């Protein structure tokens, strides 16, 4: 028994130019987004490796030796190490994978190697999601998935035209979707991470930080990235009331503010109060613990902590989009809380020896006022009437940053205003602190959801007034009322660069964006935000209480089983039921075959019937009648229901003698 090489085994089938072109094309789609982040030399190297492989196949040149490939790998890895000082972070890891894709191609001879490279392509798709999981990324990666699948199909059917393979790939993916949906929603979800993540895993996330120095908020304000979305049940607060509290800054070193040590406190839910709002927030990952809440939180979200200065904190940094529900009040009922003397002392501390002019001004204000509240009012009036300009590009400031802003440059962003105001208050003996967070947010008329972007980042002040507690004062609003009334775009002088989406000329673009945002929100909630909790909710909807992994798995397998059966039934649909004419003809042929007159494959109905009639002269007439009727129905134009019925009847009644 001779065992020839198996011609379908991928190990023995060699790749040709078409296979390689498809493979390289697919890999390019997957790698394209990475080239924005990879060092340029590595992108060039990877492209060169692809090009080299194509050159080899086009010119029938031999592939490089194994040692040369290992050498290239070693040099490139050294380069990556020099660039990142490690090979195991997220970014260097992905770049290594990119490099390996190129190197793998250089040693790809058989379809097996090519299939491994295609699987590597599937793997590279997922690495893109580490950076962004937007709908756009999903669409592009679906395209990559499609072409990689078509490439794999091409390996199995080298003779088939590419169009047919693309069609098969589409069909396969369409058939994969129901199972994928079932798995997506029902596969028992485990909350990651399973092990420690690399140090740089979340380096790309933007958001507020725990310190504020001149320039860092205005930099943040130029980003269109979404900070969070809020969906209100019932009323939506108007724009001027939408102060989303974030980190509170206590400590000033003359240049920058910082939160200092955080003191946790027990939370007591607030009852009553004016302006009570119930809402849910879908917070984007920002790699910090802060949860943003409208003004004063009246309830505490699940698994959140509360600090003495009224911040909400998650137990671990928010590294994935998360959702929480809470209630806020704008004006709490009852007397303002008392404050610890230590906290008040902290709220008066300022570095000595800086900003002498401001200190003098503050002392003048103090002398002219009878109460802390009056000091605040006078300071606000000073800012309002001082002719201050609001700008995203504030002039650079020296050591006495507050003095220079208040008396010389007179132009700044909210961080300058709040910093100067709080400093002035402290100099005048009024306890004050800086609060950072977001102000405003855009109401989407499509789905009534408020989208808050990084460009809405804001800093304001809180002063402690005896009997009233901490009171919010927004010096920026005083100096530039438009900022709070109608957002950043109106507040800035004409001609200053705005984030693209905030430009008023682009109204139509904003309309499109509203729709897109509404879709993106659904995407976030149902696709990206789908987690173990949502899964439990969904199972409850299906009537399964306390869904654990067992019930989920049982449901999943039931659905998958049914789907596979449906798919099987579909796959045989055309085959199980040929058309009635063909079925009747088949029955006729079987009847004749039973009498020893078998149709040979190349024999047409005419020759066959003549031969059968000769062999079975007793049924000659019946055989010929059926054959002519069949020929007429199959090849002629006389297809009619009665004719088909007659054919079937004749075949049924045929008794061969």
């Amino acid at each position, binding site marked *: *028994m*001779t065992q*020839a090489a*198996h*011609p*379908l085994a*991928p190990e023995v089938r060699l790749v040709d130019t078409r296979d390689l072109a498809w493979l390289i094309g697919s890999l390019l789609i997957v790698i394209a987004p990475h080239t924005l982040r990879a060092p340029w030399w590595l992108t060039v190297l990877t492209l060169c490796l692809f090009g080299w492989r194509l050159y080899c196949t086009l010119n029938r040149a031999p592939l490089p030796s194994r040692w040369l490939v290992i050498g290239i790998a070693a040099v490139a890895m050294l380069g990556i190490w020099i660039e990142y000082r490690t090979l195991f972070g997220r970014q260097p890891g992905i770049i290594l994978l990119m490099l390996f894709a190129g190197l793998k191609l250089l040693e790809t001879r058989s*379809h*097996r190697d090519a*299939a*491994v490279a295609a*699987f590597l392509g*599937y*793997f590279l*798709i*997922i690495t893109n*999601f*580490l950076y962004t*999981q937007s709908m756009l990324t999903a669409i592009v990666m679906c395209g990559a*998935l499609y072409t990689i*699948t078509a490439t*794999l*199909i091409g390996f*199995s*059917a080298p*003779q*088939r035209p590419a169009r*047919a393979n693309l069609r098969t790939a589409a069909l*396969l*993916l369409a*058939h*994969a*979707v129901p*199972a*994928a949906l079932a*798995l*997506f929603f029902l*596969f028992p*979800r*485990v*909350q*990651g*991470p*399973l*092990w420690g*993540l690399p140090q740089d*895993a979340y380096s790309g996330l933007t958001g507020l930080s725990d310190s504020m120095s001149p320039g860092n908020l205005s930099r943040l304000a130029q980003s269109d990235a979404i900070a969070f979305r809020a969906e209100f049940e019932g009323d939506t607060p108007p724009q001027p009331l939408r102060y989303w509290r974030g980190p509170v800054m206590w400590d000033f070193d003359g240049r920058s503010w910082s939160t200092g040590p955080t003191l946790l406190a027990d939370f007591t839910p607030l009852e009553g109060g004016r302006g009570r709002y119930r809402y849910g927030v879908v917070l984007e990952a920002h790699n910090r613990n802060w949860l943003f809440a409208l003004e004063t939180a009246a309830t505490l979200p699940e698994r959140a902590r509360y600090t003495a200065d009224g911040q909400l904190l998650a137990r671990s940094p928010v590294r994935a989009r998360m959702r929480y529900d809470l209630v806020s009040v704008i004006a709490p009922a009852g007397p303002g809380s008392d404050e610890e003397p230590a906290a008040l002392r902290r709220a008066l501390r300022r570095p000595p020896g800086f900003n002498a002019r401001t200190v003098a001004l503050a002392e003048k204000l103090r002398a002219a006022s009878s109460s802390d509240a009056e000091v605040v009012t006078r300071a606000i009036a000073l800012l309002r009437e001082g002719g201050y300009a609001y700008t995203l590009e504030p002039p650079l400031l020296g050591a006495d940053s507050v003095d220079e802003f208040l008396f010389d440059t007179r132009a700044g962003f909210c961080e300058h205003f709040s910093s100067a105001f709080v400093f002035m208050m402290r100099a005048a003996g009024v306890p004050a602190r800086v609060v950072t967070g977001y102000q405003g947010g855009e109401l989407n008329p499509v789905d009534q959801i408020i989208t808050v972007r990084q460009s809405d980042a804001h800093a304001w002040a809180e002063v402690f007034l005896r009997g009233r507690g901490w009171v919010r004062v927004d010096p920026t609003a005083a100096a530039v009322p438009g900022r709070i009334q109608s957002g950043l775009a109106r507040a800035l002088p004409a001609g200053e660069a705005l984030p693209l989406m905030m430009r008023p000329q682009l109204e139509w673009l904003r309309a499109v964006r509203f729709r897109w945002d509404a879709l993106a929100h659904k995407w976030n909630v149902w696709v*990206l*935000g789908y*987690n173990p909790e949502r899964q439990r909710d969904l199972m409850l909807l299906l009537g399964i209480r306390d869904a654990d992994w067992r019930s989920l798995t049982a449901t999943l397998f039931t659905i998958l089983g049914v789907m596979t059966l449906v*798919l*099987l039934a579909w*796959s*045989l*649909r*055309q*085959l199980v039921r040929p058309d009635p004419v063909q079925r009747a003809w088949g029955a006729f042929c079987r009847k004749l075959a039973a009498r020893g007159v078998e149709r*040979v*494959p*190349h024999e047409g109905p005419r020759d066959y019937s003549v031969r059968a009639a000769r062999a079975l002269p007793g049924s000659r007439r019946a055989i010929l009648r059926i054959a002519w009727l069949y020929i007429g129905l199959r090849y002629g134009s006389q297809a009619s229901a009665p004719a088909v019925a007659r054919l079937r009847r004749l075949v049924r009644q045929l008794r061969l003698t």
Partner: protein
Amino acid sequence: MIGALLERHPRFANRLYGFTPPEHGTVVLVHRRVYIVPARLGWLFAATLGILLIGSINYALSLGFALTFLLAGLGLAGMVHTARNLARMAISVGRAEPVFAGESAQFRLYLDGGPGFDRPAILARHLAAGSQLVVDVPAGGLAEVVLAVPAARRGWLPLGRVMLETRFPLGLFRAWSYIEPAARCLVYPRPERSALPPPSAEAAAGALRTQTTGNDDFAGLRGYQASDSPRHVAWKAVARSDVMLTKQFTGEAAAELWLDWRLLPAGMGPEQRLSRLAGWVLAAERTGAHYGLRLPGLEIAPRRGDSHSAACLQALALYQPS
């Protein structure tokens, strides 16, 4: 190992495979007869999915989950499509031209995939002979597979078991099926080259008459003689070989020859005799003589031509020595 076991217990194998060979008429691969297992590439794919799943959990990547599960669905769909590529295919056999023992019989199979869809990359492999061919079956058309099976002995050669296999579309699964259609090929005895029977005593009694040369049918070439008509010179052959040759023709008066089993030496075994006779049939046909065949209990009257030689050779192929 399992294959060897099944070979030793053919009845069990038949039950397992769901058919009893040989199968008459058109063989349809019903679902029950199509087996499917993951190919090596399929396991690699599964491993890739495992890594993707762990990565998705670890980084809480929703789209990672979506991709992983879409690929899992793709694998599932791939399995169904691979089975579909074979299932319900109809296989019929064509005529296998007779061959001489020692040659290879060429069996023709026709794969009919039905009108719905094409069935690419189907491997047909003769299990015993190892001959194999990959064909694409077009939608609504036939694909022809020719499998060579060595013909060792004269007589009827059954096709034997054929495996049909496919890995289309993704190569992750391997589906296969066994068929054993009732196809057979006639194998003539291995022809032994030897001179035609010499004019012996019996031949003088009529077995071989004088062979005269006429000019009706082309019989071969011989060296040119000065008296030959230029019309009979084989100019084409002369141009090739530089030697003057004359075409030789045999006429009505050509010889009548009996190829007789009893003419052969007594010590010859039956198979050797049949080989010798087969060689004679071929040689006699070449000379253009009318020849007849005599076997114990069988006589074919002298004639000539392809159908006559085929009849003679068939008689030799199927002769059962008593």
